[in-house]
């Protein structure tokens, strides 16, 4: 049971660290980094991903491609905690000489690809999955995408391709916070049920409460061990801006910066 306690505590710690980073670097986007915390905790601490922090690009790693651009600032404390880079970097986010920007870049140990521009991670991840498949590697590919970026058509080219080629080493995790920059995705271009849409495209789909870190972990482990010749998707239903009053599930949360005093009071709790 200690494992269970660990994951929840880690998620809480990362939530606070993410707030602290945003407090120091208000140029970062906070709300979209708060919906994906449990996804990353499950991947990195839940025994899902194989990785080597001292050799991030080792061929034996599982490939984790984070497509969410702005919305993965919460990865910074995780990667620092795991030893991908020194924790001092967390104090230099968006500062000259630092490696951690407002949008993560692949100069950061632990980041695979360029994803500031949305909608590229799944396509490149699909190419990686094809390459691993052709090399007869048993390594997996995980792509973490937002639901808003799935409006982009290139994703669906990859979605069709992955099922055509039976890439069951490919796992898409959608941080389904249902809000893009200017409002609810349902009011912009509704995905309806992402699970049924992806299912219609030949994917094996799972759904989960994206803030139940144990449920996310259990689903990911199940997915990893299920190989039916289909790519797999986990729709993680989440809340943008989770836990921050005024931000949580607010339609414009992407571009709202909470007042420093609010962040300070949340961090003091």
């Amino acid at each position, binding site marked *: 049971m200690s494992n269970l306690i660990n994951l929840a505590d880690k998620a809480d710690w990362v939530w606070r660290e993410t707030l602290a980073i945003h407090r120091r670097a208000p140029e970062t986007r906070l709300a979209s980094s708060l919906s994906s915390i449990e996804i990353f905790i499950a991947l990195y601490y839940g025994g899902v991903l194989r990785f080597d922090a001292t050799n991030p690009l080792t061929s034996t790693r599982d490939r984790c491609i984070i497509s969410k651009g702005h919305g993965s600032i919460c990865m910074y404390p995780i990667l620092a905690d795991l030893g991908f880079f020194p924790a001092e970097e967390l104090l230099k986010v968006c500062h000259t000489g630092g490696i951690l920007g407002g949008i993560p870049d692949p100069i950061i140990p632990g980041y695979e690809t360029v994803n500031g521009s949305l909608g590229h991670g799944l*396509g*490149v991840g699909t190419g990686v999955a*094809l390459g691993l498949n*052709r090399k007869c590697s048993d390594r997996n590919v995980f792509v973490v995408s937002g639901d808003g970026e799935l409006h982009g058509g290139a994703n669906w080219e990859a979605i069709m391709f992955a099922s055509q080629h039976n890439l069951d080493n490919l796992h898409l995790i959608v941080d389904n916070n249902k809000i893009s920059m200017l409002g609810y995705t349902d009011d912009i271009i509704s995905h309806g049920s992402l699970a049924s849409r992806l299912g219609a495209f030949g994917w094996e789909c799972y759904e989960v409460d994206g803030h139940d870190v144990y449920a996310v972990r259990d689903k990911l482990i199940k997915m990893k061990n299920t190989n039916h010749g289909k790519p797999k998707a986990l729709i993680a239903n989440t809340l943008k801006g989770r836990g921050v009053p005024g931000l949580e599930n607010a339609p414009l949360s992407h571009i709202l910066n909470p007042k420093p005093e609010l962040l300070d009071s949340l961090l003091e709790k």
Partner: protein
Amino acid sequence: MMIKAIAMRDVLLNRIWEAMEENEKIFFVTADFGSPILDKIRSDYPNRFINVGIAEQNLINISAGLALEGYTVFAYAIAPFITMRCFEQIRVSLALLSEVRSMNVNLIGVGAGYSYVVSGPTHQCYEDITLMRALPNFQVLSPADHISAGALFDRCIETIGPKYLRFDAQVLPVIYEAGAPNLNVGFHVHRQGSDICLLATGYMMQTALKVANSLSTSSIEVGVVDLFDIAKFDNKAMVSLLKNYKGLVTMEEGFRGRGGVDAMMFEFIARQNLSLPLLNLGVQGGYRFELGSREELHEQVGIGPNYIKDAVINFIKTL
């Protein structure tokens, strides 16, 4: 002995096919674009051949992913589509990512300039040089015949990084009868001349040679140079070449004055402090839907041999 001319793509695809047996790193990806020789790759190496369908954005992303896994990727499609349909993917997943990862992706675009003459401006391609040379870490290679096109295979294998190979779709007469040029120089002098040098790329080399022959009958001897490496030619060699001339004429099957070879040479001359007047010849008049042969259209837009011959004669008068 005359060498029989074949299509640029066929000579390169054949070299790729020959190499795939030994070199298990080569992966070939097409966006539903074929050729009889491509059928050999598809049937002999089904595990390293994939047709992504008419989906160039995915063509680039899949290629990037394969390259990250160590494959030497050849991605193949019609020139305007493999450059402009997916320019964002090229920029982000090939150009940017190549700065920090070792990736070897070779884009083969077939249909430079007016190659697909009856298909109209969607399939014609007059902007690719401008766009691709804007990416600072891309090689942009624009051969003038199948001999030089085939030689690019070695470049693709030996140099890691993103490249754009700009191929004509038509079978062009052989220019390099005696063998492929030295690729490292980036250009090749076909003909020495006095006063004027024609600097052409791709199909326009054919036109340049025609113009030079025609001017020769009027006792005007012009130099003819094939510029096949648009991104990285030998600067010193170019300076010493240009110092032999009083005027330079650039010839490209791309829009005139829109950042193509002409802009590159204007800038080169300025940066090298050369005092060399330049006449830039390229496609004029914007997008057009008129039908005609390539030769007819070229005359209409200011890059046909007759137009160029007159333009060169007038240019000489100004020197």
